[in-house]
């Protein structure tokens, strides 16, 4: 077969046309089809690992965006250490190396009884098992002044990497020296617990070089710093003395986008650049597919297979899941969900048993300057009594101090985890 033909076959249109045939790229008969919705840290890894471990299962990945853009490391775009291009990876190897059929579209509906999904373009695709990895949606309905497109252009979230990240960097570049950059943090749980505090470090890094009279003001809805407290407060004190101010119990009630004012319960805070990380819930498709089971926000799952507790044959991964205690909504955790789920899906589709002793790791690196990073790590194992994941006693921990070597390992982590999902 000519390579050109192969690419054509693997292209979205041909993939859709070929779907009912159930042929795998190995030429053998497929034993069934897995459809994955969402190609982030969880979904892309799940698609790859199902094919890696079971070439007799056909895998279709439906992803809205043309390329993957990483949230981890994206705060470095704010400090100037990275461009969005550095964080962008193509989906092409999922097709060429692993035979995943990548379809760039949005899923508009899931029919759990008929086992089909519907794409925005109108086609339906049937599945034997569905893996939903939709990430998060923002709850703008909780912030009246931000609940329109115009306000959202002025007050950015930059909590999904891409155009918003670049736009926030531009706002910082345009800010006057002596200005206030305010970051609003929602109540936990939210995506990437250390991320807002890393953002404060990296914004301060940029401002210290270019606008040293400026301030970074953190308005945290939580009663204390949610992650790596000692390491972040040390960085603020040692590296950016007098620049970073932290305020606990400062939940955002409303926003005036025209005056860049954050309205808190007892006071109004005016900023020069206002960055609101809104409260979050599982991505929209989780709601329409009937997967939300907790607090109207998150999807409950069986941690041995990541199968939804609400819908059979549908698995949910990553930030959209109801996290076990202490298990953060991180890219690393999403990658680990994907592999436990892929192993379970392969076992179930082959008529086997689900593996009952999964161990998964988490490591979140955060930069505190353009070169130095810190981490928090943990290992979780399945707790059969509580039907949850629990950290293994005495494992895990924090960096003893920020260092350049961990800055290099953080970069190594990113390159390897991206290759583990897409390479």
């Amino acid at each position: 077969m000519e390579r050109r033909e192969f690419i054509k076959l693997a292209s979205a249109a041909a993939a859709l046309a070929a779907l009912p045939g159930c042929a795998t790229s190995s030429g053998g008969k497929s034993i069934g089809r897995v459809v994955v919705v969402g190609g982030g840290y969880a979904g892309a890894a799940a698609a790859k690992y199902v094919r890696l471990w079971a070439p007799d299962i056909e895998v279709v990945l439906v992803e809205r965006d043309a390329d993957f853009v990483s949230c981890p490391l994206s705060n470095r775009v704010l400090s100037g250490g990275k461009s969005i291009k550095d964080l962008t990876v193509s989906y092409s190897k999922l097709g060429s190396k692993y035979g995943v059929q990548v379809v760039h579209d949005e899923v508009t509906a899931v029919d759990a009884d008929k086992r089909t999904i519907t794409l925005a373009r109108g086609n339906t695709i049937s599945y034997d098992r569905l893996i939903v990895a939709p990430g998060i949606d923002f709850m703008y309905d909780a912030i009246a002044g931000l609940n329109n497109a115009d306000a959202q252009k002025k007050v950015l979230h930059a909590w999904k990497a891409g155009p918003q990240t670049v736009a926030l960097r531009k706002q910082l570049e345009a800010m006057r020296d002596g200005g206030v950059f305010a970051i609003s943090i929602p109540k936990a749980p939210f995506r990437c617990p250390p991320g807002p505090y890393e953002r404060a470090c990296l914004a301060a890094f940029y401002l210290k070089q270019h606008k040293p009279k400026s301030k970074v003001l953190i308005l945290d809805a939580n009663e204390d710093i949610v992650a790596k407290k000692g390491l972040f407060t040390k960085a603020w004190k040692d590296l950016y003395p007098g620049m970073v101010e932290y305020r606990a119990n400062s939940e955002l009630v409303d926003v005036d986008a025209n005056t860049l004012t954050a309205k808190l319960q007892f006071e109004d805070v005016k900023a020069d650049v206002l960055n609101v990380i809104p409260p979050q819930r599982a991505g929209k498709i989780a709601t329409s597919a009937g997967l939300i089971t907790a607090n109207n926000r998150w999807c409950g799952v069986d941690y041995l297979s990541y199968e939804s507790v609400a819908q059979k044959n549908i698995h949910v991964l990553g930030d959209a899941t109801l996290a076990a205690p202490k298990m953060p909504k991180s890219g690393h955790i999403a990658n680990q969900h994907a592999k436990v789920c892929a192993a379970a899906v392969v076992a179930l589709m082959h008529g086997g048993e689900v593996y009952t002793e999964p161990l998964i790791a988490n490591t979140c690196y955060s930069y505190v300057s353009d070169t130095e990073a810190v981490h928090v790590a943990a290992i979780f194992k399945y707790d059969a009594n509580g039907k949850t994941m629990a950290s293994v006693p005495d494992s895990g921990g924090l960096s003893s101090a920020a260092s350049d070597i961990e800055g290099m390992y953080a970069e190594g982590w990113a390159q390897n985890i991206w290759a583990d999902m897409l390479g």
Partner: protein
Amino acid sequence: MKKTTSAIYISGLLAFFAGAAQAAEDVGSRNLAAACAACHGTNGHAVTGMSALAGMDKAYMVKTMQEFKTGKRPATVMHQLAKGYSDDQIGQIAEFFAKQQK
């Protein structure tokens, strides 16, 4: 030119399926080792910036993991991760990586 690319593609695909068949032999050790891949690459094939584990001598990996656990070998993060695994689990993981082609 076209022939070369498709030959490379087919040989890549064969290696890919052979790898999958081999991995199926021991699902438990495969699953445990997959957790390491986030940092050390798929099946231990690191791309850059971290050590490759594929094809690592089993005895060396077991010894190194023990030294991470006890603190004999200094580390930034591996001492904290190694403590999450029992000796038996480390043995299984080391066995899996030793079997992977370098």
